[in-house]
């Protein structure tokens, strides 16, 4: 990306001892600053991206490696029946008070009252500050470290006593109280490297918080967020220099090429991708051969490429197994022998035709019909406003039609799509869906695809399927009951052989039976203008691993202001 100038697009080496500057770093926000409120349990107008700057997360997740990185916590330990979380030294609230274990305890309590998924393993009574900086959590169920950490990964240290102690009390007295969800503070008391200064109609201003434990690595005065709605406006903003960065905006190579040379791209895997969900009760799509044929008829590489506007922002799924990590192929690291798996890559219409014929279909006038003479046809729904999905769907649709499957693309209003088609009563034949929600540990994504509420209710996947042994599609099938399998996997040590074995079996089940057809994984694109700032190369693990580079990198001194002339 970028140009190949000798100076380097990243703006030169970051030495780590850049002098403090008065520079302002500006990024977009899609919430009107004047409307912002800072309680993320209140659903209206919580500014997500600015939240990353004003608050500290307990820990950060590096999507490339699956590691957890220090945030407000410096230490965490997940044992058999307890987990201990320890705050960093020097974490300070923006009102000047030191952050203590009590604050962490308050955060966890409130989250549990608020039905946080951590509640699967513990309850409020078990969460207790043990000293100034540590909180001990009594675990009520078996849980492995990655599973537990994942459950607290989105938590941020954002419940100062000044604003939330009363609310915690109220929740303790009355778990049904709406005090939390209705609280809408206009000014946050944060713990992040930048503190709220003011919010105008168009712009939110945060200034460097000198007492922050990150302060040493931050060398610019202000971090601003400007209200920008829509991708086009955002592109224009970075082209025109109104903002210094964009986070997470899909940008095709053509558009990227129109940015100034000083703008560099940082890509970041999301481990979140698009798949096709089949209604397993559909007359034809309920047949495994049909799903497999569809998988062969679609060229996922072309789909991903089209969806990315010819760029590399969409990574095609190499071997559909339900495990995330196709950005760099890390998904396959979990597989003992990837060759055993069907990779469905390319467009293998011969194989697809073979499969359909096996299932009793025949081609008439270029269209597949079943034994009863019924056409193999289905409607394919996608949310209208998700342009990259629509592009992918158009492509996929074309591939299937070319192959002789009568598909009909239907774009739906987003709300209707989720409300009626997926989670409502209208249903679908096939629909755009995702196949992993951001987690690299296979337990999550496999559980999600095979065993979740969604699997049962959205695409009507059965609780158990008959699967032949790994790598032997024609071998004798054995029934897999998903419920017990995954229950066991929660508590299993991720490093043990048994765990690996189980994961392989489940991945194979997925690969063979295709509850969903994963197409591609999304890669977040962040852009930083190096006109006034320097940023590390994408090859740096921090740069490309932690969401969002534009908010995380300043903390660790990898996004710094250039010295002022």
């Amino acid at each position, binding site marked *: 990306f970028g140009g190949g100038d000798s100076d380097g697009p990243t703006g030169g080496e970051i030495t780590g001892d850049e002098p403090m500057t008065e520079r302002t770093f500006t990024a977009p926000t899609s919430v009107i600053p004047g*409307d912002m409120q800072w309680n993320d349990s209140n659903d*209206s*107008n919580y500014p997500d991206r600015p939240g990353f700057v004003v608050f500290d997360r307990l820990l950060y997740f590096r999507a490339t490696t699956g590691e957890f990185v220090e945030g407000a916590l410096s230490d965490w330990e997940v044992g058999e029946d307890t987990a201990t979380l320890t705050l960093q030294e020097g974490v300070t609230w923006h009102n000047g008070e030191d952050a203590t274990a009590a604050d962490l305890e308050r955060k966890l309590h409130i989250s549990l009252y608020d039905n946080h998924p951590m509640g699967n393993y513990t309850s409020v009574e078990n969460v207790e500050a043990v000293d100034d900086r540590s909180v001990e959590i009594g675990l009520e169920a078996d849980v492995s470290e990655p599973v537990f950490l994942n459950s607290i990964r989105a938590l941020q240290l954002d419940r100062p006593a000044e604003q939330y102690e009363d609310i915690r009390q109220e929740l303790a007295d009355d778990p049904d109280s709406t005090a939390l969800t209705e609280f809408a503070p206009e000014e946050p008391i944060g713990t992040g490297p930048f503190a709220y200064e003011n919010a105008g109609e168009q712009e939110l201003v945060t200034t460097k918080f000198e007492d922050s434990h990150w302060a040493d690595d931050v060398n610019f005065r202000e971090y601003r967020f400007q209200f920008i709605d829509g991708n086009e406006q955002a592109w*224009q903003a970075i082209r025109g220099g109104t903002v210094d960065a964009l986070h997470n905006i899909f940008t095709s190579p053509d558009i990227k090429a129109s940015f100034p040379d000083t703008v560099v791209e940082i890509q970041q895997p999301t481990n979140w991708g698009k798949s096709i969900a089949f209604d397993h009760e559909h007359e034809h799509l309920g047949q495994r051969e049909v799903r497999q044929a569809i998988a062969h008829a679609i060229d996922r590489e072309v789909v991903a490429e089209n969806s990315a506007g010819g760029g590399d922002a969409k990574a095609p799924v190499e071997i559909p197994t339900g495990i995330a990590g196709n950005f760099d192929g890390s998904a396959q690291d979990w597989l003992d022998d990837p060759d055993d798996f069907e990779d469905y890559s390319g467009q293998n219409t011969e194989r697809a035709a073979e499969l359909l014929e096996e299932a009793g279909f025949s081609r008439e006038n270029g269209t597949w019909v079943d034994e009863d003479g019924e056409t193999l046809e289905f409607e394919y729904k996608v949310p209208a*406003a998700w342009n990259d999905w629509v592009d992918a769907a158009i492509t996929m649709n074309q591939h299937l039609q070319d192959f002789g499957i009568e598909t009909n693309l239907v774009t739906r*209003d987003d709300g209707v799509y989720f409300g009626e088609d997926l989670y409502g009563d209208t249903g679908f034949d096939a629909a755009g869906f995702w196949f992993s929600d951001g987690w690299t540990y296979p337990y999550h994504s496999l559980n999600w695809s095979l065993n979740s509420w969604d699997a049962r209710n959205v695409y009507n996947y059965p609780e158990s399927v008959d699967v032949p042994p790994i790598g032997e599609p024609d071998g004798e099938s054995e029934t897999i009951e998903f419920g017990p399998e995954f229950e066991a996997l929660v508590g299993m040590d991720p490093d043990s052989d048994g765990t690996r074995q189980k994961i392989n079996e489940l991945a194979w089940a997925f690969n063979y039976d295709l509850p969903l057809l994963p197409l591609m994984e999304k890669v977040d694109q962040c852009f930083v203008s190096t006109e006034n700032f320097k940023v590390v190369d994408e090859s740096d693990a921090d740069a490309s691993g932690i*969401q969002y580079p534009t908010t995380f990198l300043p903390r660790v001194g990898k996004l710094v202001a250039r010295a002022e002339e």
Partner: protein
Amino acid sequence: MQKYYVERTFQAIVTVVSVMTLAFFLLRLMPGNPADAYRAELIQNNPEMSQAVIDQRVERKLNVLPSDPLHEQYLTYVGGLLRGDLGESINEGVPVSEIIAGALPWTIFTMSIALLLSFTIGISLGAAMAYKEGSRFDYGSSVLSILLNSIPNYIVGILLIWFLGYRLELFPTGGRYSNDMEPAMSPLEPLATAAFLGDAFWHASLLIASFTIVAAGGWALGMRGNSIQVLGEDYLRVARLRGLSERRIATRYVGRNAVLPLYTALLIAIGFALGGSVILEQVFTYPGVGYYMIEALEARDYPLMMGIFLVMTIAVVIGVYIADLTYGIIDPRAQARGGEH
């Protein structure tokens, strides 16, 4: 005596009430609900958010939705309206009236400037064309007016953003005013106020221009027709013979007689301008009522949609109402002509 006013007022009220009722039930007929829309938004904006968290949040959204039977909700809504309460936005969690109060001035600001500009430009151009009827100027301007009138204003908007905003970067392409501008609206600070208004105008200029360019074509064509008609009237010939100055003839005779029939059209256009701002504001991401209308639609934010719909309807009703009530006063001919106009 007052019968006409009473009848007209009654009709206005009936109109508002029926449109509101229609809208209320139509809105509930739409597939999807605020919670669904919220889920879509969450999923799109936070791919990393766990399904459980999403479910939990959606659940919370569902809880704020009223669950009474529809007709009871309707009565509650009407009751609230009578108390001046438009309800609370489901999506934004603030009173609808607050959102509208924040957005409406901006739409009124842009649309009134745009309408006045287009009207002024249109009638001047139209009159000039009529005076030069048959000339090359007339021919060219007519074709231009027709051409402009055949382009949707949002397309003009896209083109303007494209060239003046993105390409040449001469104009801002969105937002209400500059970031470093302190909103000031006070007679005590005339300078600051002027600077602020100027800046706001600067930011809205492309939006205003797109509306103006298209609408001016229409006004010009209308004015041209009217003026040509007036220019052929006997009284104009008499006025010339009486030796009146061309200026007086152009203003008091041609202008006035040709513009008056457009008066009603202007008032009605003012009424419809709010509703007509929808696509333009979306194109310019200009947070006026039209913008919030689509936002509310996408979020299935019923109270907010109702509120905006109400405002838009009332604007039209008031426009038509004023037009009807005042036309007779403005144009003496109307009294002779009777109710039809």
